[in-house]
């Protein structure tokens, strides 16, 4: 469970989701078995893991989320979106803006309606624009002040873009 501040729909909330790293779930254990996934937990899984263990992941009771990296093409997961209650887009660097286009495409072209969460180097300076392109949840980088972050949604009260 993450300790970072999570903002969802402009409110600080507790996070029920768990982000899985690829490695442990792909490695074969000493007993020769691939580790199981927790059955009831809400899991966010990387694309690679989704591709390899789709059926196992879908057989669980918990909800499922997908994590995308900046270079991932949303078109490639467009037909899978119905399985996800959450899509997370990673922003590994402060200035890497690819995820903004990913969000726009997910919302406008592929009709994704679930939670769209920004992860990574997220500061209050990003939130206003992120919301504009379709994000509704943000995992703030460590050290970010939650109150100031919430205030930043009001940085701009208008936008020129449709």
């Amino acid at each position, binding site marked *: 469970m993450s300790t970072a501040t999570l903002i969802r729909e402009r409110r600080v909330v507790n996070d029920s989701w768990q982000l899985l790293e690829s490695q442990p779930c792909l490695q074969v254990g000493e007993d020769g078995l691939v580790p199981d996934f927790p059955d009831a937990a809400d899991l966010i899984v990387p694309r690679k893991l989704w591709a390899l263990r789709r059926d196992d992941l879908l057989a669980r009771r918990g909800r499922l989320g997908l994590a995308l990296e900046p270079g991932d093409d949303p078109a490639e997961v467009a037909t899978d979106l119905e399985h996800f209650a959450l899509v997370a887009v990673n922003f590994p660097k402060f200035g890497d*803006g690819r995820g903004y286009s990913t969000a726009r495409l997910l919302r406008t072209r592929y009709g994704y309606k679930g939670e769209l969460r920004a992860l990574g180097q997220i500061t209050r*300076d990003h939130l206003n624009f992120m919301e504009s*392109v379709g994000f509704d949840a943000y995992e703030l980088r460590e050290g970010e002040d939650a109150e100031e972050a919430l205030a930043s949604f009001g940085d701009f009260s208008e936008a*020129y873009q*449709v």
Partner: protein
Amino acid sequence: MYRYDEVDQRLVDERVAQFRDQTRRFLAGQLSEDEFKALRLRNGLYIQRYAPMLRIAIPYGLLSSEQLRKLADVARRYDRGYGHFSTRQNLQLNWPKLAEVPEILAELATVQLHAIQTSGNCVRNVTTDHFAGVAPDEIVDSFVWCELIRQWSTFNPEFSYLPRKFKIGVNGALEDRVATYVHDVGLHALRNSEDEVGFKVIVGGGLGRTPMIGEVIRDFLPWPHLLTYLDAVLRTYNRFGRRDNIHKARIKILLKERGVERFREEVEAEWAHLKDGPGTLSAADVEKIESRFTRPAYEKLGTDPISFEMGSVPNFKAWKKRNVHGHKVPGYAAVTLSLKKTGVPPGDVTSEQMEAIADLAERYSFGELRVTHEQNLVLADVRTRELPALWREVRALGLATPNIGLLTNIISCPGGDFCALANAKSIPVAKAIQERFDELDYLFDIGELDLNISGCINACGHHHVGHIGILGVDKNGEEWYQVEIGGNQAPASLGKVIGPAFARADVPGVIEKLVACYLERRDSEAERFIDVVQRVGIEPFKEYVYGNSHKRTTRRQRQLAVA
């Protein structure tokens, strides 16, 4: 002049508040150098060699007297009493204090000015023809389209963290006075056979360390689709432009790596989804923007001939020939105020001059002026009968040097005197060349010649597209200057280096030799320097400058071979 509505003003005010808070957090240690860099740059703030530099946006180069007075005031109170007009039609202050920048921006906001997106990896100030709206060869008034693009690009949430900076230039006339082929996106207005307006879309041009001429990816884009098409280009770039290497991150590299055909297909495929969508422009959208521009209330004037008396004053004649330009309305002319007086850094103006120019604009040109990408100012709507009176006033201000289009109208970056990136100084080189060519008859005899100087490979002085281009290079810690010839803004061509670099003191002499070679070879006065270079190539110029030592070597080798 575009007048803000309540939303325009609120956005600028909100930006000031946002940046004030970001500056506070940086000074309090809550934002790292790198993070603050990404934020301050998009507010025009650089950290330079000796001090910060603030680049203030002059959207599409259009300025009111009131705004110019405020710039003069800000330069005096927060800087050293002068400013520098840049090739993107902006104004740079060289000595502001970082902590005071939010205050400067708040002052600018009171006259509808800002520094939004004048730097950083986002869409920069859109540039256009300094004769927009008055040019006799006008196809459309490009200001309206520039304002539409300004609004589309301002705080565009999807395109605010691009791989690299993004420059758009819009040309609305027959002649390309915008250098559209050396922009990330160049737009060239056209009318098709049904008299409908559209744009030729040119992508992937640029200067810098990898100069390239743009490619046409669409011959005619009907105007309603302008913004959705830009969305498609920018989305393609934002997603696929390289982010691993800052020197390969411009859209020109993406276009080159993909090849123009594949790049065009990708953009068109993206556009297929966006075309006719919510971003499509309606006639009402365009009219709304158009109606927010104030227009000069032209009088019905005849074409007044200049009085006989004035016509015989040689200095006035020279000025009228070089600095006065045609106008689409009879009885009016556009006038360039030259910021290229010998000894003054190209593009620099003092606060006193700015105030005096603001007065002139009010008295002679409806209170408006334009900044040219060649770093001069234009009064665009002057009654021709008032030209003599204007000339006297402009001359008294030291702004009547009759050198527009001539060799001493040098485009130059601030260079090593200010810029942290520069390898060499450019201002002293410009000065030395201007001094060498200070004699007017000689300058006029040489005719049209663009000479551009950049202090480093980033090419802010556009040396690649100067008929003569000078580039400052570093050789073992010393300043040297490489010389190119054959560059041109439009039709765009890139200069070729003539040979090994020169010491600074030798540069004026080299320019003299290039000019002498040209004068010997031109077939008439109508054949310009650039025409001769294009006709005979760079070899004759090379020989003229370096001598024919390499031929002697060849002859000696031949003799040796025979022996």
